[in-house]
């Protein structure tokens, strides 16, 4: 499969999806079912890897590209991931110049506020997956308290959580590993 062909197949998934993993069915159909350049297991691994590394979930196409064709495949995946972002330019330009209009402002603010509600909804499956034992529940609660009551950087809280979990694992307190 050529670089351009892989890019276009991945782009077909990313440009028609509005959330990180929403592109998965399209890309699965193209690369796993029809082209056989990727296995279903590799596809799952690509998702697991990007959920375990910093950055947006949409990065999974980079991992999938790497599994399909090495570094050039990863570059094709990266290009497929960033290309749709350029579509925001005309809409930002258009809406930005009309932001003083009360109706445009009301529409955009309603979308942002709805996004906050959706984010809370997204925390539910993330919580089910991550808060699996007393230690991780304690980490989640302590993290939220620190975020709400202090100005500690998010990166430090995540690093601290990782260190606490490693310590708990060392003394056998993380149940999910056993």
């Amino acid at each position, binding site marked *: 499969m050529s670089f351009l062909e892989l890019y276009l197949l991945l782009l077909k998934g990313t440009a028609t999806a509005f959330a990180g993993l929403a592109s998965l069915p399209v890309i699965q159909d193209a690369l796993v079912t029809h082209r056989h350049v990727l296995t279903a297991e590799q596809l799952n691994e690509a998702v697991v890897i990007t959920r375990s590394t910093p950055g947006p979930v949409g990065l999974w196409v980079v991992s999938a590209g790497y599994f399909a064709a090495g570094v050039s495949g990863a570059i094709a995946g990266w290009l497929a991931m960033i290309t749709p972002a350029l579509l925001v*330019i005309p809409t930002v330009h258009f809406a930005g110049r009309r932001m003083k209009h009360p109706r445009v402002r009301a529409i*955009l603010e309603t979308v942002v506020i709805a996004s906050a509600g959706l984010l809370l909804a997204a925390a539910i499956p993330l919580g089910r997956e991550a808060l699996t034992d007393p230690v991780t529940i304690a980490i989640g609660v302590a993290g939220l308290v620190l975020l709400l009551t202090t100005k500690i950087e998010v990166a430090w809280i995540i690093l601290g959580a990782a260190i606490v979990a490693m310590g708990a694992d060392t003394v056998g307190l993380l149940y999910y590993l056993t």
Partner: protein
Amino acid sequence: MAVETDDPVREGLVARPSLFRLADIFVRYGNITLGGGSATVAVLRREILDRRKWIGEDEFTVCFATARLTPGTNLLAFCTGVGWITRGLPGAVVALLAGSIPCAAMVVLATALFSIWQHVGWAQAAIHGAVAAAVAVTVKTCWTIAHPYVRPGTRLRVAVIAGAAFLLNVLIGLSPVEVLLLAAGVGIFIPTVRA
């Protein structure tokens, strides 16, 4: 220092950042956060709006709302929008590259090493702990995003819109983009509030 400009979007804001500064901030803060794109947006908001005042509240709203309605990865659309507003096309390209190359490189490395580190217990424990903290980051981000719109007389409106979006997604099963398009439709008709 306010900038004199005929651009209504840039009116009253501090000086635009150089492309280098723009790249620096998006590399440092656009690539590191666990917990999804919105958590990263919350961190970026603090850096580019609260601390450096490169964009204003209105511009954040424009970038965030339009990015949420753009196909693909919303975070990258947000970065591109901020880059466009602050430095035009070069800024959009720089922000997009700075917000995507480092984390993509990390994913390539993690993919290459996956067969090794998936069996390393301490690494898995560290990731599990970090993701648990990411749940807290996600919950806090809801407030970070919504609170600028909580003004006298709008508290109930914010609670109803956010609550309805949550319920439509969780209970009714509407997809996020369906909920957001519905929200945009509601925004056309609800009474406007003075800023």
